[in-house]
Every structure is written in structure tokens, then in C-alpha cells.
């Protein structure tokens, strides 16, 4: 048996096609990293001199007598003026962030007073406020602003606590005040994170993480923790999303993970949903769909069947060889991804753990890279195995490469469309459609499937039955197959 499998592998690796696909895979994966890198920079493209020069030229074309156009004029002028003030500082600095987000309010008031209301007094007032703010930024450290916000927040908190002690308030008022206090506490905690972990306001990932923590924390307070009480699945999924984002942000802040970058290369590999994994499917289908089909159509199968081995053994050796190539290519694909994500972010970031959230334990879990990738791969393995076995089955039944490869690809590509259509229907029976069941990614870490009728045990059974049906039928068909005259 081992000799037979070796024979098959030797045949596969003597073909050029597999090397060509390997090279294309590497090239494409690296290219997509590069393109994604460019796309991230696109956001910043608007924040440059050229853009504002262009905007300024456009400004002259507005008709200031038209009410609507006047308003647009004020909007555009405000953003130009804001940029002009902010660009005194470096784009990554806290000052740039503060000015571009907070100064625009004063500038807008100035422009409104000047062009719409034509009120010099209001204009002066707004200008003074702006100058004051600009001076404040110039004279102080970012901690000054955080501390100031902290003092304001604590004051609000104290006021609320006092209201709570008031004996005249109703129960309803009391609970609404309590909710507000909880929200304020989260906001306060966010400010404390900034001070403790030295995270200034900025466009940095660490700063975004604090925002994520505060925003989702406040949202999470509003959700009912009892999941059984949810009637709408969308609402439940939303709640879970908020819960996950909030706790992961908190965990990362607490443990000083990813202060510099929002995503580590490890995270990207763990969450890999890139289109390049398609190449693994290309290889699977190509090998599984031709390993029998080619021999049957070219007649070389006779060279195998005239030897002292059972047909089932010949077939099994080919199936095993296909599986081996599949695993090898998957490892190759992961290696290519590892390198390209490493280049895209940084190889150092692989030392960071992969963070995810378990809905069974309702807590954040830390995985190392190998664990993370393995778990993810295992969850998509049934899909790939079924595609592989389908291609194998078709090539034996139809004795044709083209048909086996084409149909298997169609099934793979249309599966998501079919699943989308099924998800829109209300027929529970459709939840046992094989393509609805073969991907277990959504179930990882206690996750909920997006389709309301889907369930883990049913999916497992359907996948096993589909696989066995294809696998066994292939062997039965091949055992009784007449090798047709050419």
C-alpha cells in the first residue's frame, strides 16, 4: 500500500501544473498583502496638502448668494481652516488629533458668524475660544487634557451619586441614574487607561482600542445578559459582537497587548478569510478531479488494474495520495501567508498571542499561533474534505477530468450564494443542505451560526453522511466499472 501511495505521489509531483499553482499562490498572496497595505494608506491620502489645495480652488466656485451653497462653503472652509491649523503638528501626534477633531467646532462657529450670520461679535467670541484652545495645546502636555476630562467626568459622577441619595426620586428615575453612573464609570476607566498606559488621544491603534473599549462597554451595559430572552437572532448576534469587542479591548489594554498596532500578524493569520485560500481549493480540485479521471480517459488506468492488487486498494492509494498533497499544500499556503503577513505588519508581532473570545466561558482566551491556526483549519476541514471527495467521486463516475473539475469548482463557488438564498427562506429542512453544514467556523468558541435553524450536531451528522456517501459510492462505482474500449 505504501508503495502504491508513493507511486501516486511521484506521478503528481512530476507534473508541472502543481508547481505553477504554487508559484501563483505565493505571488498572489504577497501581492494582496501589498494591495491591502496601499488601501490602508488611502484613508490618509485625503489628509494632505494636494487635497486641500483642490478643495480651496473649488471654494471659489460656490455661489454665496445661494443658501444651500453657502452652507457647503462654510463646511468646506471649516475643514480647510482646521487642516491648516492642525498641520502645524505631526500627523501622528496627539496635537494633530486634538486640533482636527476639537478645533473644527470653534472654526465652524467663526465661519458661520462671518458668512451666514454676518455677526462680528460672535465671530470675535469664537476666534477667542479658538486661540485659547490653540494656546492650551501649545502650552500643555496631552495628560493635561485627559486629566481635565477626568475631573469633569468625576464631577458629573459625584452629581449623579448625590441625586441617587435624594429620597424623593422614584424607582424608575433611580435605575436610569444607576445606568448613567455605570456608563460614566466606563468612560472614567477609559481615561484612566490613557493615563496609566500612556495612551494619548491620537489616530493610533492603541487610542482606537480605548475608544473601542468605552463605546462597546457602554453599549454592552444596555444589553440583557440572559441570551435565552432574545427573540431576534440579529439582536443576539449584535449583542455578542459588542460583548466580544468590549472584552477583547479590555483584555488587550489590561495586558498591554498591541499598543502600537491594532492587528498583529498572528491575528491576521488566525482570522484568515482572505480570498487566497481559494488556491488551496484549486489544488484540491485539480488533483482529486484528475487523479482518476486522467488515467481513465487516457487509458493508463489499465496499467494499474492489470497488477495484482484489488481495485479498492488502487483507488484508496490514490485517495490517500490526494489527501497528502492537500495537507502539504495547506502547510505551504500557511507558510506563504506567514511570510506575507509578516511583511505586511511585522514579524515581531508574531510573538504576541492570538486573542479571541469564548462564548461558552464568556471570557477572553489567549492562544498561541499554532493553536489558533490549527483550530481554524479544523473548522473548515470538512468543507475541503467534501469538495475533495466530490471531485474524486465525479472523476471516477464520469471518467472525465473536465467535468469533475468544473462541477466541483461550481459547487465551491456557488455554495455561498446557495447558502445566502437558504438563509433568506424559512424552511427548516433546508438547514440540512450539505453546503449549509460543512463549515464549522461560526461554531468556534461557542459561536452562534448566522442561520437560525443551523445547529452543530445536525451539521456534524450531515457532513459525515455527505462524506461517507460520496466516499463509499466512489468505491462501489469503481469496483464495478467496465474499462470502456477506446
Amino acid at each position, binding site marked *: 500500500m505504501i*508503495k502504491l501511495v508513493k507511486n501516486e505521489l511521484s*506521478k503528481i509531483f512530476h*507534473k508541472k501544473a502543481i508547481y505553477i499553482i504554487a508559484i501563483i499562490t505565493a505571488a498572489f498572496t504577497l501581492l494582496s498583502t501589498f494591495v491591502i497595505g496601499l488601501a490602508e494608506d488611502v484613508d490618509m491620502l485625503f489628509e494632505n496638502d494636494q487635497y486641500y489645495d483642490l478643495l480651496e480652488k473649488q471654494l471659489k466656485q460656490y455661489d454665496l448668494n445661494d443658501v444651500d451653497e453657502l452652507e457647503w462653503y462654510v463646511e468646506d472652509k471649516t475643514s480647510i481652516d482646521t487642516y491648516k491649523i492642525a498641520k502645524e503638528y505631526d500627523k501622528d501626534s496627539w496635537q494633530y488629533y486634538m486640533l482636527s477633531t476639537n478645533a473644527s467646532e470653534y472654526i465652524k462657529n467663526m465661519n458661520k458668524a462671518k458668512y451666514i450670520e454676518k455677526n462680528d461679535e460672535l465671530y470675535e467670541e469664537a476666534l477667542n475660544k479658538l486661540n485659547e484652545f490653540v494656546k492650551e495645546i501649545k502650552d500643555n502636555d496631552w495628560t493635561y487634557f485627559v486629566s481635565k476630562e477626568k475631573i469633569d467626568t468625576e464631577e458629573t459622577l459625584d452629581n449623579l451619586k448625590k441625586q441617587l441619595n435624594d429620597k424623593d426620586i422614584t424607582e424608575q428615575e433611580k435605575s436610569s441614574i444607576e445606568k448613567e453612573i455605570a456608563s460614566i464609570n466606563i468612560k472614567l476607566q477609559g481615561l484612566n487607561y490613557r493615563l496609566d498606559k500612556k495612551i494619548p488621544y491620537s489616530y493610533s491603534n492603541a487610542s482606537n482600542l480605548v475608544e473601542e473599549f468605552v463605546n462597546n462597554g457602554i453599549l454592552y451595559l444596555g444589553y440583557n445578559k440572559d441570551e435565552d430572552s432574545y427573540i431576534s437572532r440579529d439582536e443576539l448576534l449584535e449583542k455578542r459582537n459588542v460583548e466580544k469587542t468590549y472584552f477583547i479591548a479590555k483584555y488587550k489594554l489590561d495586558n498591554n497587548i498591541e499598543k502600537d498596532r491594532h492587528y498583529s500578524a498572528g491575528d491576521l493569520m488566525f482570522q484568515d478569510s482572505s480570498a487566497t485560500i481559494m488556491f488551496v481549493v484549486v489544488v484540491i480540485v485539480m488533483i482529486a478531479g484528475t487523479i482518476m479521471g486522467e488515467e481513465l480517459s487516457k*487509458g493508463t488506468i*489499465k496499467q494499474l*488494474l*492489470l*497488477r*495484482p492488487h484489488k481495485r479498492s486498494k488502487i483507488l484508496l492509494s490514490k485517495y490517500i495520495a490526494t489527501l497528502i498533497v492537500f495537507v502539504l499544500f495547506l502547510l505551504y499556503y500557511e507558510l506563504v501567508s506567514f511570510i506575507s503577513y509578516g511583511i505586511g505588519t511585522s514579524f515581531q508581532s508574531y510573538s504576541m498571542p492570538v486573542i479571541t473570545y469564548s462564548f461558552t466561558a464568556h471570557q477572553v482566551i489567549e492562544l498561541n499561533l499554532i493553536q489558533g491556526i490549527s483550530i481554524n483549519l479544523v473548522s473548515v476541514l470538512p468543507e475541503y474534505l467534501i469538495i475533495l471527495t466530490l471531485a474524486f467521486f465525479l472523476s471516477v463516475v464520469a471518467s472525465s477530468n473536465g467535468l469533475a473539475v468544473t462541477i466541483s469548482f461550481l459547487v465551491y463557488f456557488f455554495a455561498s450564494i446557495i447558502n445566502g438564498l437558504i438563509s433568506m427562506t424559512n424552511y427548516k429542512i433546508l438547514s440540512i443542505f450539505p453546503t449549509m453544514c460543512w463549515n464549522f467556523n461560526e461554531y468556534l468558541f461557542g459561536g452562534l451560526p448566522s442561520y437560525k435553524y443551523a445547529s452543530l450536531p445536525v451539521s456534524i451528522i450531515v457532513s459525515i453522511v455527505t462524506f461517507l456517501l460520496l466516499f463509499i459510492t466512489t468505491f462501489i462505482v469503481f469496483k464495478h466499472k*467496465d474499462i470502456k474500449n477506446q
Partner: protein
Amino acid sequence: MGAILEVKNLNKFFGKKQILKNVSFTINEGEILGFIGPNGAGKTTTIKLILGLQSINSGEVYINGYDVTKDFEKAILKVGAIVENPDAYMYLTGRKNLELIANMYQDITKERIDEVIRLTGLEKRINDKVSKYSLGMRQRLGIASSLLHNPNLLILDEPTNGLDPEGIKELRELLIKLTKEEKMGVLISSHNLAELESFCTNVCLIKNGSVITTSSIKNFKKSDKSYYIMEISTVKGISKLLGKNDNIVDDTHIRVLREKEDLAKLIKDLVNKDINIYSVKLVEMTLEEAFLAKAGGNIID
């Protein structure tokens, strides 16, 4: 010692159409059986049934005493075969092809592979890719691959296809050597009768899925009907006495196909017509002539 190959009453249907009707024959040690028939007669199908490549609807095949349907692995163990074409992996070298086949048996040594390469005269081209081979080269490779495991039954389906006269001569010598030295049995199919004449010890004729006759090549040629050249005084007025296969050669010669008794009757008739008979000569038939005589009509269509 039993027969190497025993084929008993094979029947095969494709759908409702019966392709083979009670095909039977036997090959013993040292015999080369020429399996002759026109295209579509069922030669390749018979071979595929023998080799287990297609299912048998009814009948039995024994190779070295093993039933091919029940004991496939033992039955096929000492069989070497080329069916339809000398199939080889075009993208591999000749040697790699042989190595892949060697891997499918228990103990085929490197030395054995080299021996077979020498035997089939492939030494110079064995490390080239098969895609660069001519059909004749591929035929040789096919024979090499069917000899690797020292079979005692060799089945060759149209092996002379693509071979030049020199190649056919070599093949004949190789087969004769193998049958004598290795005590092999050989089944060789062809529609090229002239070629088989020099190959075979026995002949089996098949047409429309039925075996018409099986016999040793000597008996076959000396079959019941023979051609005779008769020298007579005149050919005038004898056309009524001549059959479909008879013809007038010239004014004083006719050529007739007759069984012995019929020949005697023809002589009597001629004498009764007052035609003098000067000589009657038996013509040694070629296999093709014998074939036509047996099967009648236009066989090679």
C-alpha cells in the same frame, strides 16, 4: 500440467446488444495463439474480460488455475498484457514508467528492469520522456512493462501496430524465444493476418462475437477446403460448375476452392462434359486465404 489460460463460454452484453457469444479457447505452455478477427469482432472485449477490466455476464476465465473473478490477485499475478494501446505516462521517462510498475510487485530488482530494457532494445532512449517516443518505441516500452514480473501468460492486443517490418521481425523472435525458454503462453490479437502467420502456433477466429474456429496453424491451413489449380482442355461451358470462390485463370486453367469429396465430384462432372483434365495441383494457402475460405465473405471491413 493444466492450461495457462482457459476461457469458457464467455458472454458479454452492452445493454441489450450481445458483444460476445460463448467465446471459448485454451492456451497451453509454449503456445502462441493468434486471435484473429475484423475490427469490432470482440477481440479487445474478450481480452478485457480475461484481464478483469470488464465484468463477465456469464462464463469463466481461469489463469494458471485461478478464477479471474474470484481470485483476481492470484490469477493476474503472472500475466503481462498490453490492451488497445501501449499505455504509458507521457510526462515521465521510460525508466520511471517501468519503475512505477515494478513498485507494484513484490520483488522486481533494478537488474531485472535493466534486463527487460536490454531485451526490448530500449537502452538508448530509456531516459527520454515517453512523449518523445514514436509509436513503435512505445510498443516496445509496453512489452517491456508487461515482461517485468516474469509472467507466464502474455496478452498482446494488436502489438504490431506502429512497428516497422524490422520491429515485427524482432518481436517475433522475442516471442518465440520467450515461449521456448520461459515456457510462456501468448495470446496475440490482430487483424493483420499476414503478420500473424509467422508468429503463431495456434489460431482462433472470431467474428461478430462468436468463435468460428480454433486450431493449430498447420491444421488450419490444411483445413477442409483447399485451393486447387486444374489444367483442363477448355474452359468453355464450365461456368455452371464453378462456385463463388472459383475463378478462371486463363483458357486452360481454373482455380477452385473445394473439399476433397467435392473435388472428386467436380472431376467427374468435367469428365462427363468431355473436358480433359491434364493436372490437378494443391495450392499451399496463406493464412489470409485460409481465413477467407473459413469465414467467407469480406472479413476485413
